[in-house]
């Protein structure tokens, strides 16, 4: 407890030092002789011409500094992307050469062919898995989110506020608190590799569908079908739809359900698109949970597959690794380029919630 007091009091002292108000002086300072003080601006005695010249010079200098700093930071930010692409096109020897090159001496498109070889990095499989999981997960989330946001935004019911508070509180809990139990739960449902589902429909060679596959998909999709954050976002959106529209639809004799789907959803489409894209990106990028519950090479998601396809020991094939990384990263960047607005607005609004 003492430490807190110390921290608090040292902040107090700092605050006092920085403030201009003398906090331990009495108010009788009106008698301090101030009428004869000659107040001047800092450079009051330099000629106006000089001041204007200095002003211009300072403006140019500050612009140079700002643009220079931003450019430097931008290069630092972009460099890994650039490096990723050119490394994916280099030979392994060139990558390991003592002097690094900033452009491949020989452009090795073959790195991509080699990397996408089924034995190295089974891109098609991972892609299909990720798309299935991603799209079903996203659609499911959209539906649950729309329903819940509608209930919180438009309907009145007992306990509405308390329930919403509880929902918000869950956002504070770190996912690690739930992971272990969820793993056990999912195992209990029989969705894991040697669980009941896989015994129900045993894997048959050549047959794509199997109990284990179904289980893996379920395990990756279902626990994350609800996102409290997106419920919060969509509720905000729904609340902004004017009440008059609702009353008008009532006058027209339409039901709530009709209003929800014919009016509210279309009006909130930018937010819904943001949620869709962000959730899809989330599925693409997810690693931890799929790694836990779907580690069979056939069921892996793309990020999971990426990491596990390349070992870090022995003769590391950096060229192939980077080629695979490019393949994994490019779709995200494409999404970003085309849907930049939705992504940045969605992240921004999600961030402002604090």
């Amino acid at each position: 407890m003492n430490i807190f007091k110390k921290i608090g009091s040292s902040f107090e002292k700092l605050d006092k030092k920085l403030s201009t108000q003398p906090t331990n002086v009495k108010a009788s300072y009106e008698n301090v002789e101030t009428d004869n003080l000659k107040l001047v601006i800092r450079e009051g005695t330099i000629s106006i011409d000089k001041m204007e010249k200095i002003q211009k010079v300072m403006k140019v200098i500050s612009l140079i500094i700002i643009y220079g700093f931003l450019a430097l930071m931008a290069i630092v930010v972009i460099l890994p992307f650039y490096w990723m692409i050119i490394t994916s096109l280099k030979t392994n020897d060139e990558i390991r050469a003592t002097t690094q090159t900033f452009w491949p001496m020989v452009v090795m498109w073959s790195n991509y062919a080699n990397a996408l070889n089924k034995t190295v990095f089974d891109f098609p499989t991972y892609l299909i898995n990720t798309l299935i999981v991603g799209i079903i997960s996203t659609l499911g989330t959209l539906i649950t989110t729309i329903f819940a946001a509608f209930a919180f935004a438009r309907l009145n019911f007992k306990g509405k506020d308390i329930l919403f508070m509880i929902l918000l509180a869950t956002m504070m809990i770190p996912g690690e608190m739930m992971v272990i139990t969820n793993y056990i739960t999912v195992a209990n449902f029989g969705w894991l590799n040697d669980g009941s589902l896989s015994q129900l429909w045993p894997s048959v060679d050549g047959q794509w569908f199997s109990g284990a596959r179904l289980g893996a998909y379920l395990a990756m999709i279902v626990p994350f079908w609800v996102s409290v954050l997106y419920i919060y976002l969509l509720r905000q959106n729904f609340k902004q739809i004017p009440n008059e529209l609702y009353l008008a639809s009532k006058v027209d004799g339409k039901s709530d359900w009709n209003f929800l789907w014919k009016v509210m959803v279309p009006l909130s489409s930018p937010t819904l698109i943001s949620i869709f894209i962000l959730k899809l990106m989330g599925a693409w990028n997810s690693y931890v949970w799929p790694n836990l519950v779907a580690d069979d090479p056939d069921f892996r998601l793309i990020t999971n597959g990426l990491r596990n396809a390349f070992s870090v020991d022995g003769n590391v094939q950096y060229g192939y690794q980077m080629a695979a990384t490019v393949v994994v990263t490019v779709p995200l960047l494409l999404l970003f380029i085309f849907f930049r607005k939705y992504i940045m607005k969605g992240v921004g609004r999600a961030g402002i919630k604090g």
Partner: protein
Amino acid sequence: MEIRLKNLTKVFPGNPKKGIKDTIAVNNLDITIPDGKLIGLLGPSGCGKSTTLYLIAGLQVPTSGEIWFGDEEVTRLSPDKRGIGLVFQNYALYPHMTIYKNVAFPLTNLRVEENRVYKVDVPAKIDSQGNVVAPAHKAGDIVLDVDGNPLKIKRKLKPEEIDSIVRKTAKLVQIEDYLLRKPNQLSGGQQQRVAIARALAKSPRVLLLDEPLSNLDARLRLQTREEIRRLQQRTGVTTIFVTHDQEEAMSISDEIVVMKLGVEQQRAHPQEIYNNPINKFVANFLGTPPINFFNGNVKENKLYINEECVLDLGEKKLADQEVTVGIRPEGFEVDPKGAMHVECQNIETLGRDISIVAKHPCCERPMVKIIIDADTKVQAGIVTLRLKPHKVFLFNTKTEERIW
């Protein structure tokens, strides 16, 4: 501090791609604002008065022309070096600081210039031959440079000094009780006084106010404009304020500058502007109720409205022509022998005056507004009126300039 605007012009460039034309906000303004006076910039919205204020403040840079503070040209100087105080229309009080800190903020950025003094006794410097090279000095003596002028130093204000100035200024605008509150805890009128205090605390060379009364309710407006007047007279600082309310400008300004579309229309003492408007716009802008305009013509030095000879123009001769006639509401007298006839629509007793709303075929507006003394007897129907010559203004129909 006398302020001089020389051929000041500010053009806001348009966007040719979007078809937006250049906007000339201030057009060749040339005014001298004498030291210590309270000047009002008056005009409808879009007339360039706020832009002029911002040019003086330095928040905008003019396209051409010069601005002089006294004998210094400050045209392109950035605002932080101009030494002005500005009261924004929305006050712009720093929301995260207490009132005390708000008012003290400018003081923390200024320096005190004073004479450098010796802190201790300094003995005289004597060279090897016993001659005095540099004289002795006692503590407290002013240090002189080679020319014998006092050496100046600049230092920060001490907390006691800041405290004293803040409290004195607070007392001036009567906000001493709120010093520890935050801006969002104050009412609009109180916030404005804080804004004024913040502007005055630094003893500015000129005080600028941007539509100071427009955000206040009617009751507060009357009170506050008197306060502005009182403050200005007490501190003697050159003050320029911007408004679109002619009554405000008339009541407290030493001089009014009427502006329209960036061009100065007339600049004079309020009463002078009222009695002698230079053109139709100025005549129309000042006066409540507004002036009445009629179509008339001059023939043989007599004024005719609606074929009725209402006025002899007397000594000042005017050629025969069509004119626009402006007659102040108080420029009519009920006189059975009068030449002008109006059809009375409504008679209102206002206690001290009587207001008549009447119809006249040659009036530019649908109704004529007439104010007469309450003791006059008047009945509904056609009323005969006589004109008071000094309340009648004649304007050129095309240029709208005053010709009589």
